[in-house]
């Protein structure tokens, strides 16, 4: 290392969210609420509040009726109104009104040109010192004919100092409402979720404020996704929102020790380590709703526990028992199953008294039939998307297997039917041809009953790989895929280390000659030090520069994932593991 002690090595804040956020602007932002109430002294030296604002935020000046966030989009940022007014549309707007269109896919000619232009060098990249700034995307989408579009829709105005979008950004979930600028010149501060998370960590008042906001706004939206609550009058929903209890089970960093746990324990031992949410035989204090994470539903079977189903976000448990107890108060029905937290789980509990008073009287006849004792199920019942009956549909071994491997988190898990796979590797070649000659998965993985869970990114419902990314390079696309922005990835390995399934690979990037790229030396004026031949001074002792790579589900290709299209034997599929019916249909082809 040179006297200046400086090198160019990709690092957090190399690429500020917005280079136009100058120290002077940060000074001004710090005088505005809620930042004026935060104590900068609480922040560590390596992560100062001003640094977060300088690097993890950007300033937006919006035109009247410009859309800031759209309902249904996945967002990685929260927004703070600085000047003007933002309008939240509390009801859904038609897709075309919101300017939705299919994502930019490569056409035929672009695909062919890309294939022809594929470098022979593996993991070739332009030199890392040439940071390619993301092309300024034209984010401007206007909501046209606002009076007509919003006629009869409930809206709410947000004033300076109010925050929005934080629930979707922190929960890695879709936006629940559309927000537009109500006036021209409305100024907002967009905060990357990493910055928001860091601020919450060191500013308890901000954390409390955001949790309070969740009860006010996020909880209502979440509850309204449930059929049994959607039809309730506003006053009943208000009462439920006020009384709902938040409970958390498990460790947020479960993925850190998961592989070790998997290697060193038996399935029965692992099950015992999962925190109990509700024990079989206990009285139900309330309706349990999964807010985040996954819940194992099991029952006693001989000397062990048999997994019967799993519940994901927005699914609930306990209505049957509460209904039975309300119908026959003399015959107490306790929980038929145990509920356990798989990893980390957030649950909401609506007290039984409220369920009995507000929800049960408004159940439809079909819902009531489903809650009756066995044998009274309606023939017209909608096929369950829930984990209900998963055991019957998928087979006993498969359910336990998916739970053990925690692949239930997968939104696009790659499964290979090994009884049909000829090991031809056409899938791997297909993947490579779609990614400049670099395959983005490994055709190996855990298997049971001839089904392999292949080592390819599963595009998890809860992508914990995104949690530690310091630059936001790994993010969720509007269409739901979890992808890595190669231009902002600094190769820190945080995402790869966080992925409990080992589905993110770190690769050494190479130049056009196939040589690894190394950090280069900088002088005091931040200029690259050149040698006598004019070449950059590589610091090979520091190790080659890396990037994180993984399956991107070919989100920019027409026709979907190349691996699926390349398999001639119908052996490979990408499946949302919560769609039990599809999974069962595929397993029982």
């Amino acid at each position: 290392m040179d006297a200046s002690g400086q090198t160019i090595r990709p690092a957090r804040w190399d690429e500020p969210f917005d280079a136009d956020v100058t120290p002077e602007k940060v000074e001004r932002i710090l005088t505005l609420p809620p930042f004026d109430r935060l104590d900068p002294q609480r922040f560590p030296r390596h992560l100062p509040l001003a640094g977060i604002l300088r690097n993890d935020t950007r300033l937006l000046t919006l035109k009247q009726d410009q859309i800031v966030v759209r309902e249904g989009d996945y967002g990685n940022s929260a927004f703070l109104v600085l000047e003007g007014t933002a309008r939240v549309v509390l009801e859904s707007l038609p897709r075309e009104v919101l300017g939705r269109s299919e994502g930019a896919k490569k056409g035929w000619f672009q695909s062919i040109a890309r294939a022809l232009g594929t470098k022979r060098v593996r993991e070739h990249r332009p030199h890392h010192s040439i940071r390619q700034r993301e092309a300024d995307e034209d984010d401007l989408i206007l909501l046209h004919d606002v009076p007509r579009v919003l006629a009869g829709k409930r809206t709410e105005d947000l004033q300076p100092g109010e925050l929005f979008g934080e629930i979707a950004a922190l929960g890695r979930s879709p936006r629940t409402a559309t927000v537009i600028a109500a006036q021209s010149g409305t100024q907002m501060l967009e905060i990357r979720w990493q910055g928001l998370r860091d601020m919450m960590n060191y500013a308890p008042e901000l954390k409390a404020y955001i949790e309070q906001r969740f009860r006010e706004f996020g909880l209502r939206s979440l509850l309204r996704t449930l059929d049994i609550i959607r039809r309730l009058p506003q006053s009943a929903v208000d009462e439920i929102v006020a009384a709902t209890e938040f409970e958390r089970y498990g460790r947020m960093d479960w993925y850190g020790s998961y592989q070790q746990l998997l290697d060193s324990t038996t399935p029965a031992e692992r099950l015992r380590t999962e925190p109990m949410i509700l024990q079989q035989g206990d009285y139900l204090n309330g309706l349990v709703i999964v807010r985040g994470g996954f819940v194992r539903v099991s029952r006693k079977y001989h000397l062990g526990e048999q997994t019967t189903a799993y519940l994901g976000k927005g699914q609930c448990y306990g209505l049957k028992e509460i209904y039975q107890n309300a119908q026959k108060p003399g015959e107490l029905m306790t929980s038929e199953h145990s509920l356990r937290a798989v990893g980390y789980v957030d649950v909401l509990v609506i007290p039984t008294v409220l369920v009995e008073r507000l929800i049960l009287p408004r159940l439809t006849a079909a819902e009531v039939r489903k809650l009756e004792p066995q044998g009274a199920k309606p023939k017209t019942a909608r096929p369950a998307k829930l984990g209900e009956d998963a055991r019957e549909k998928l087979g006993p071994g498969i359910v336990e297997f998916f739970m053990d491997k925690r692949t239930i988190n997968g939104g696009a898990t790659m499964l290979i039917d090994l009884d049909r796979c000829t090991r031809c590797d056409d899938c791997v070649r297909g993947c490579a041809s779609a990614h400049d000659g670099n395959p983005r998965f490994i055709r190996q993985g855990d298997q049971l009953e001839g089904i392999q869970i292949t080592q390819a990114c599963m595009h998890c419902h809860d992508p914990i790989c995104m949690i530690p990314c310091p630059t936001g390079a790994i993010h969720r696309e509007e269409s739901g895929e979890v992808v890595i922005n190669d231009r902002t990835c600094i190769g820190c390995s945080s995402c790869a280390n966080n992925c409990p399934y080992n589905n993110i690979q770190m690769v050494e990037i190479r130049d056009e000659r196939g040589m690894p790229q190394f950090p280069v030396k900088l002088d005091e004026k931040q200029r690259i030090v050149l040698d006598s031949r004019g070449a950059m001074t590589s610091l090979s002792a520091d190790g080659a520069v890396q990037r994180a790579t993984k399956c991107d589900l070919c989100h920019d290709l027409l026709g979907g994932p190349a691996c699926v299209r390349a398999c001639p034997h119908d052996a490979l599929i990408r499946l949302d593991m919560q769609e039990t019916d599809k999974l069962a249909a595929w397993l029982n082809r």
Partner: protein
Amino acid sequence: MNFFARRRLRNTLLCLVGMVLAYGLWRMLKVALRPAAIYTGFALLALVLALALFNGRKKLPFLPLLKASSWLQFHIYAGWLSVFMFLLHSGFRLPTGTLETILAVLFVIVALSGVAGLFITRLLPPAITRSGEPLVYERIPRYQHALRTEVEDIVEDAERQSGSTAMGNFYMSTLAPYFQGRSSVFLLAGNPSRHAQRILGQMDEYCRYLDEELVGSMEQLRDCVERKRNLDFQNAAQRLLKLWLFVHIPFTYSLIIVALVHAWVALVYGGRL
């Protein structure tokens, strides 16, 4: 009826309808005294070219050209149709001229290798899956080397600890040829475990001359024999899954070239060019 059975039934019916239509047209052309061989020849050539496009499709997975599995279904059933078209074209008789004979032989090779490939790709994968630990074909030589080293270590340890040459002798006479040998695809003809079973039988027999400690080492070796059996089977099966294409594809290209020559000769000498 599951998905695959439904698809098989639908495609078989479509194929049979195609055959009936082709036969009807062929009969009509015959009755009308039209040159049926010219029409069936071109139809056959078109079918063969369409079948050969499947390999081209496999090279372009990044283009939205239907899924490869749909192409394979077309390939299989259009392949059966091409066999029927070949019979119509040849007039259900053996070829006579040299060029025609070469062409017919090439067609038969391509068709038979295709049928063999179809059966191989349907029968071997479940057997591989249930054979034991899954193995990547390209890494099998490395696994074999590691296994051989492990066996040698077990034998050396046993010799050192017992002070007897019993294990060394057995290794040299029986185990070394087995562990050093590489399996061929012919292993799949008959019982693929026959070599392993023979070695295990000899090990059982030899155990009666060993003490308790060496019997323990023999148990370790039994596990190695089982792993070698899996290695050999997977090596043979995975190799065969790749090898048949080395017959099917080159002969397809040869067939296309000879078929084009045949078409040109037929048109020129038939006075149509």
